[in-house]
């Protein structure tokens, strides 16, 4: 039975059920991003003190909804699509157990809807973290549990597809690096979901009265084994996509398979320990426990990220230089396709993830420095650099690639698409920088009113803090405009984009006119061949392969070192304690 079609533009083979699943997961993700984005506007316009849009109860509802939709639902739906792509499409294999995959997707939808209903009713404004003993409605937890079970099924479908590809010999040699990275993401996801089950199932039982008490500290420790690890799925996933994008756009191959894969392996071993970042100023943990865990056992996962930070742009530089862009240190970068949103989205993501997300993450995850940062608005500033610019920008960039390849549509409003990564990235960078500043001045996160209206006692933050929150607010509004542009382009492309070839599928279910059925005329794709061997002299010649990237990496390190010690200096100025 022929079940594959070959994309005439990219040469990718799409298994029919994998393709449909990728489409529905991507669409569901974008819908969640839309909800998260609308909520983001409410949050931003409330924390911008002169606007102060929403009343307190609506603000906390919006903040809860924003966190869950943008950080969990959008990203994990999209990651399911990425997993199916990295297994079935990249390995040219049929998808394992498509019915199970559909069941998983259905569970994720039911869970996401259930949780959204609980939050939007206003009775479960407990923030994404839902720390006990503050209680949400039972279907808040049940929704998250169903969603997680669905995602877990997706993970096993991914692993099953790897097994099928191997058994049916659809590729030669080892799996490609991108699939390797996606496998790392999948393994971390299984760990994450297991941790989530350990804490959310009892919490659900507690919310319906079957369990009388949940220890507040135990909840925090185990919840973060899920909460932080889920962000590590994103890191592994979006770095895999970085490698994919440089492969597609530049024909780049990793500078060294060994180095890039070892770095991914370090993620499996050490990334999870970072859950301790959230527990550094909690009661009862020993210093040894905190130091070992918060540093991922001597910063070995940070080492992995620093390695990818060199090898991703380095691989791109090597490929560009081979094409003759060899002038000076940076011609390869200057002459990159800056007007292609796939490239600009990826590159902005890479730079901001490293310089802002990475550095601030390590600094605030330092045991003692956490004292001056915990729960200030510095924390969301950090994870907007990692998750919004890092992950979301990367997923957006990949979407621009998927629209023609997967959905067979031309881009709607291509000029808007061209500007979108810059609007989104620029706005978010503004938001991040000024929230970092306000956090350093002590402004609290998850706080409706930094003017403390109605408090018995009084306190005033410095005027600079208000100004920084205002500039951050402008950045946030720009970010929302950038996000809206993305939605306009993607939804517009699906509805009105130029059809690239007869295609049918998901659109029918949204009431859009069905087109001629797509041609699935390939029974078995050709075996995926190994990359061509390079001539020997290109390996490890005496000079640098990627001198420009090396300079950029050193610049990152210098910023890192300076900023790290500035924060120690700041710490040394607060009250002595111990």
């Amino acid at each position: 039975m022929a079940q594959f079609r070959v994309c005439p533009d990219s040469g990718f083979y799409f298994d029919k059920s994998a393709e449909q699943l990728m489409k529905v997961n991507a669409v569901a993700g974008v819908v969640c991003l839309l909800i998260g984005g609308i909520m983001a506007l409410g949050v931003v316009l409330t924390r911008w003190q002169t606007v102060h849009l929403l009343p307190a109860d609506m603000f906390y509802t919006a903040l809860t909804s924003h966190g869950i939709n943008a950080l969990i639902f959008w990203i994990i739906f999209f990651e399911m699509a990425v997993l199916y792509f990295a297994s079935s499409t990249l390995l040219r294999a049929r998808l394992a157990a498509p019915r199970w995959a559909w069941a998983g997707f259905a569970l994720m939808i039911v869970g996401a809807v259930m949780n959204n209903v609980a939050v939007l009713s206003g009775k479960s404004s407990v923030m994404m973290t839902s720390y006990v003993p503050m209680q949400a409605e039972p279907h808040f937890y049940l929704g998250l549990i169903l969603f997680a079970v669905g995602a877990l099924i997706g993970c096993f479908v991914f692993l099953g597809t790897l097994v099928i590809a191997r058994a049916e010999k659809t590729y030669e040699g080892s799996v490609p690096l991108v699939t390797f990275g996606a496998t790392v993401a999948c393994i971390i996801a299984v760990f994450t979901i297991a941790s989530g089950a350990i804490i959310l199932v009892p919490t659900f039982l507690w919310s319906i009265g079957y369990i009388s008490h949940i220890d507040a500290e135990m909840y925090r420790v185990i919840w973060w084994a899920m909460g932080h690890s889920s962000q590590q799925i994103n890191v592994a996933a979006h770095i895999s996509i970085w490698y994919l994008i440089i492969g597609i756009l530049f024909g780049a191959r990793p500078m060294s398979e060994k180095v890039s894969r070892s770095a991914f392996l370090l993620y499996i071993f050490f990334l999870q320990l970072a859950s301790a970042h959230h527990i550094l100023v909690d009661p009862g943990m020993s210093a040894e426990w905190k130091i070992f865990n918060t540093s991922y056992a001597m910063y070995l996962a940070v080492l992995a990220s620093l390695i990818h930070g060199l090898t991703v742009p380095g691989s791109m530089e090597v490929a560009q230089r081979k094409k003759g862009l060899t002038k000076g240190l940076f011609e390869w970068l200057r002459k990159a396709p800056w007007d292609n949103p796939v490239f600009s989205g990826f590159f902005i993501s890479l730079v901001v993830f490293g310089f802002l997300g990475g550095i601030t993450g390590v600094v605030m995850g330092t045991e003692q420095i956490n004292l001056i940062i915990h729960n200030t608005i510095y924390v969301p500033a950090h994870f907007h650099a990692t998750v919004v610019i890092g992950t979301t920008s990367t997923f957006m960039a990949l979407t621009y690639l998927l629209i023609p390849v997967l959905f067979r549509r031309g881009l709607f409003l291509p000029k808007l698409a061209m500007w979108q990564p810059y609007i989104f990235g620029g706005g978010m960078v503004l938001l991040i920088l000024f929230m970092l500043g306000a956090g350093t001045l002590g402004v609290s996160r998850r706080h409706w009113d930094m003017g403390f209206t109605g408090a018995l006692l009084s306190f005033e933050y410095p005027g600079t803090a208000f100004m920084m929150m205002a500039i951050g607010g402008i950045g946030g509004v720009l970010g929302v405009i950038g996000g809206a542009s993305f939605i306009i382009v993607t939804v517009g492309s699906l509805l009105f984009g130029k059809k690239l070839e007869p295609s049918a599928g998901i659109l029918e279910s949204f009431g859009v006119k069905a087109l001629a059925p797509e041609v699935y005329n390939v029974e078995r794709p050709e075996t995926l061949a190994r990359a061509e061997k390079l001539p020997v002299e290109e390996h490890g010649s005496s000079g640098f392969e990627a001198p420009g990237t090396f300079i950029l990496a050193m610049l990152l390190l210098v910023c890192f070192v300076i900023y790290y010690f500035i924060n120690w200096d700041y710490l040394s100025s607060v009250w002595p304690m111990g």
Partner: protein
Amino acid sequence: MTSFQPPADRIWWKVPVGKDELLWIGIALVWCLIMFFMMPYWHVYGKQNISSEAYQTTPAKFQASVDAFVEKYKTGEEKGIPIVSPPAGSDIYLAGRLWQWYPILELEKGKSYRLHLSSLDWNHGFSLQPVNINLQVVPGYEMVINITPDKSGDFAVVCNEYCGIGHHTMLGKIIVKE
């Protein structure tokens, strides 16, 4: 088109690694180790560390400790909240509850105190401003920290862990006298 193709060499892990990468891995590893050893170093030579002294407790038990403490050292009242002036070096208590920090503490500059912190209901966040010291306050756990105020003046305790609709009104006060 190779980052998503199987590696060119069958035994890819034996392909020599380029100079850029080796050098960078070396530099990055050294930096990682420096950052790692900064934390134990600060425990020995730094003045700002996080106490790991903590006890399991219950809201009722902690409330009783706070009440006894307030009764013993109460010297005044501000807006209905007692002001407590404990002697230098003593055990002092601060409770977070919906939506108040109780009581107001009056301390002496340069003197050390053993601060007991806990919550009587939900999670709260102790955020001392404008000094900017932030600690998590968890119900059922009593954290004990040695603090030494080194500047005089009025300081606010902002709650920086979301604790419901009145979260933004939860302000406390610590007075440090010369």
